[in-house]
């Protein structure tokens, strides 16, 4: 390799910056760069450009999605009931849908969405007959009334099982509902489960609670 700056093309330089070159080729480029101020400057500018772009759109990560977007995600996938059905809905895809549906519930926070527990997601009240679930709801209500983000609450006892919930982020949906995220860890006997969810103020002033498996 000559030490002329034109010997390293820009495609190679950008690949070098992004660690996309094979190790040997990267070492060659590194050696050539040492005596090539022009190429060094190009590398510097490419780094600057990449680093500047990296966080330019982070706002989209931090804002809760608008309602119309959540409604769009509700679209029921009309899947044929075939073997392919299961294959298509990979774990992450189902999780995404579940998360989106849970978020969707915020928009219609007038009441609980009646989904069975067998769907994997549903209102926390679905197990209202269960003492631990009742205990959870009571703890959640206390937490929502007075808790701060990150605060934990323990509930239950040795007989019914024990749980801990932790409050998460607070945000307001496009519909104007105030919502809180929460995490929940429960232990019943030797079985430990972890999930989380959203609690949103309903129009009537109560809370609509939706849990999502993790």
């Amino acid at each position, binding site marked *: 390799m000559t030490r002329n700056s034109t010997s390293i093309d820009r495609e190679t330089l950008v690949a070098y910056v992004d660690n996309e070159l094979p190790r040997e080729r990267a070492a060659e480029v590194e050696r050539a760069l040492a005596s090539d101020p022009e190429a060094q400057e190009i590398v510097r500018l490419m780094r600057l450009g990449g680093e500047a*772009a990296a*966080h330019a*759109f982070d706002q989209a990560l931090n804002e809760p999605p608008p309602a119309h977007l959540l409604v769009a995600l509700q679209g029921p996938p009309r899947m044929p009931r075939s073997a392919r059905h299961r294959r298509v809905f990979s774990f992450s895809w189902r999780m995404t849908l579940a998360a989106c549906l849970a978020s969707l519930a915020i928009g219609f926070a007038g009441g609980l969405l009646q989904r069975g527990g067998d769907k994997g997601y549903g209102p926390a009240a679905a197990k209202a007959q269960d003492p631990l679930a009742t205990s959870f709801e009571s703890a959640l209500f206390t937490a929502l009334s007075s808790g701060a983000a990150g605060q934990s609450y323990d509930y239950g006892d040795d007989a019914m099982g024990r749980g801990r919930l932790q409050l998460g982020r607070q945000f307001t949906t496009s519909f104007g509902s105030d919502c809180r995220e929460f995490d929940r860890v429960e232990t019943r006997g030797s079985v430990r489960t972890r999930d989380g969810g959203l609690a949103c103020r309903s129009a009537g002033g109560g809370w609509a609670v939706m849990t999502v498996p993790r």
Partner: protein
Amino acid sequence: MVAILPRLRRFAYGLTGSMEKGDDLVQAACERALSKAHQFDPDTRLEAWVYTIMKSIRIDELRKHREMAMDQELLANHPGGDASADTESRIRLAEVRKLIAKLPEEQRVVLLLVSVEGMKYREVAAVLGCPIGTVMSRLSRARLALGAALAGDQPHGGKVVIFPG
């Protein structure tokens, strides 16, 4: 909560230059993705598949509206949204977004996928349906243009551009 939605929104924001237009694009892409769920190959990354869908919707839209130029006014007026960041870096980020908006669409897509979404070149080539060499040449031009524009602003603190919001 497991969801790729925030990343889809970030990509769409970068592509269209505004959160509103970006969300419209995400919405269209999600609708198309749901209707074509049977085409999704579970061995691939879901977001890469949706990026492909977003890119093709975007191309359709650009053809329809011949809207090759970004809505600069909307972009400039869009609030920074970085509540915790100081004013200087907010202005800086707005400047970066404006510069990215000025790039040709084909370069912008590659820049977003590599430098924002952190995808490997071969993944980007798959999303765009083009050779890796094309990815590299578009990316090198985009990065250099952006870097040079930003460096040109730097020496004396640069020209101060105040964006409302």
